[in-house]
């Protein structure tokens, strides 16, 4: 029988998914209003991965999400305020406003976050897993990246090294079918990126990345096993990003029909239906949770306004070490 969350975990998971969704909607609104500058890559539609991966890990396991990673950062422990403050470039931001959307890193929660260079964090994760193995820890490192990053040389070099040195590194490919505008069907030589593991003598699996219980139980099963017997694993989760690659994207490279099909497979709606069936939530309670999350994110956003930013002089302190 397929794995199912109990009531408490279902409610927590739903709250995480709604927080991820609402956070991204809020960021999008703020961009439209010119309240956030720069760029951002929103993860709406991929909430089952956000809420399914980090909660399945040990708190001392590291994650390295990619540039579309706000939801993962929240799931690992950062608050919406921590991240919104970073996007608003104020001192309270997780990276003191020095990193921004593409570089959310929060070491308090073992989140070594995102390089803006697609695919470059994959070997970094292998290095971290190697160091933890040297120290005799039973922890794993999970790095998240997209279908397009699997075309980087760093992906292939990293998988090879992880395999020969048997490090506990979970490579999580979030296959959302597009690398910016280019379909994976065109740019990736295989249908399932998971098969690329075969070249590196590595286990792999393909799962539905929109099924939060499946994501959670798969990550839990694999990482539990990796702790006992250190080795890498390539997990491919099929999913879809509802919005464009970044804020300037008009999505002319895909059809409205395709987008509608994937919205039918909304990870939040699918899990909500299951929760209602199981008697874990009512329509009314769901709406209440949604409203509470919205209020929480609005409050976090309001709290960022007018806050102090790091000065030029202080920024120099972060350039060199001694």
């Amino acid at each position: 029988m397929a794995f199912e969350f109990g009531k408490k975990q279902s409610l927590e998971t739903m709250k995480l998914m709604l927080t991820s969704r609402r956070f991204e909607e809020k960021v999008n609104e703020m961009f439209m209003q010119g309240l956030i500058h720069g760029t951002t890559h929103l993860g709406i539609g991929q909430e089952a991965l956000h809420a399914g991966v980090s909660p399945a890990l040990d708190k001392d396991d590291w994650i390295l999400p990619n540039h579309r990673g706000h939801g993962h950062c929240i799931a690992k422990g950062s608050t919406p305020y921590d991240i919104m403050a970073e996007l608003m470039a104020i001192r309270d931001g997780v990276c003191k406003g020095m990193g921004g959307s593409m570089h959310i890193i929060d070491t308090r929660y073992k989140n070594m976050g995102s390089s803006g260079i697609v695919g470059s964090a994959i070997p970094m994760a292998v290095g971290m897993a190697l160091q933890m193995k040297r120290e005799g820890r039973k922890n794993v490192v999970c790095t998240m990246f997209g279908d397009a990053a699997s075309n980087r040389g760093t992906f292939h070099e990293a998988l090879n090294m992880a395999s020969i040195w048997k490090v506990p590194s979970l490579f999580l490919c979030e296959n959302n079918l597009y690398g910016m505008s280019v379909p994976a069907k065109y740019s990736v030589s295989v249908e399932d990126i998971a098969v690329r593991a075969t070249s590196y003598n590595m286990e792999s699996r393909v799962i539905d990345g929109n099924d939060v219980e499946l994501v959670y139980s798969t990550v839990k099963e694999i990482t539990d096993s990796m702790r006992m017997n250190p080795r890498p694993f390539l997990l491919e989760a099929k999913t879809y990003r509802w919005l464009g690659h970044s804020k300037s994207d008009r999505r002319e490279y895909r059809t409205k029909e395709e987008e509608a099909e994937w919205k039918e497979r909304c990870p939040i709606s699918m899990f909500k239906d299951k929760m209602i069936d199981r008697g874990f939530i009512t329509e009314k309670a769901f709406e209440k949770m949604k409203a509470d999350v919205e209020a929480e994110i609005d409050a976090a956003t309001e709290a960022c306004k007018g806050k102090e930013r790091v000065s030029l002089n202080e920024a120099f302190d972060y350039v060199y070490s001694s």
Partner: protein
Amino acid sequence: MAEITFLQAINEAMSEEMRANKNVVLIGEDIGIYGGCFGASRGMLEEFGTDQMLETPISEEGFMDLAMGASMIGMRPIVEIMFGDFSTLVSDGLINHAAKYKFMTGGQVEVPLVFRAPFGSGTGAAAQHSQSLETMFTNTPGLKIVYPATPYDAKGLLKSAIRDNGPVLFFENKLLYRAKGEVPEGDYTIEIGKADIKREGTDVSIITYSRMLPVCLEAAEQLAAEGISAEVVDLRSLKPLDTETIIKSVMKTSRALVVHEAPKFGGFAGEVVAAIMESEAFYHLDAPVARLGGKEMPVPYNPDIEKQIVPVIDDVKETVRKLVNNGGVKV
């Protein structure tokens, strides 16, 4: 004091630091039984084993990023690249990652990583195994860069680099590997960012680093016989640059020549010249500041041409003679 080679000095520095700290790990190609492409780690595998000697596949970008990741959670990697020319392959790890993670995270992480790369021509290895690529990295804030010329400086600076909590690029020159010099046994360090006056003089300051140091010292010796007193400043570190020592020396001598092996155009000498021109030393100059660097071509296999594309003793002497004649400028 014992005389050892530049290579032995590097071996000693790495070995002493690895003995003192198990988290100092040497990472690179053929560093194990083979002892490294040029022998810098010869004999070290026996003592340190595979835990501290990570011999890698040919995956330069991958193992640089790997080292970078590990360095943020406790490892202090020394990454050896076989030839400095392959710096192009690891530049993403250094420029986009190691140099920036402390900054981008608002100080949450440190990147205590050393990158060792052998540069330089003169070995007949042709265009892709002979370059001096230091200026690929000098314009990236966040990277410290050292480039020693003697075994004594190499050992002291490498130990400082390994103990530094940020990324340090440690550049070596292959033709200096066999050069011998006095090196004290045991622990000592040299501060990164301090130049060293290798020869005192009063008529001209020759400012140089790495393989051009012995060339400039020999030229200074020969010029002394002509009655010209040349001061030779060894930069040792390119970043931070010891502008104070440069300026002081030029104010004393009133003339300056900057010499390096890398191509002159866009070379590091331009930065040294600017440091002089932007300072009060400018008002002390008796002649335009001069530069000598490599010729504007890839390093050829043809050994006759290979010898002619880098500055030699006669080039230094001739340029200095012009400078003491006020650079040909009528005053």
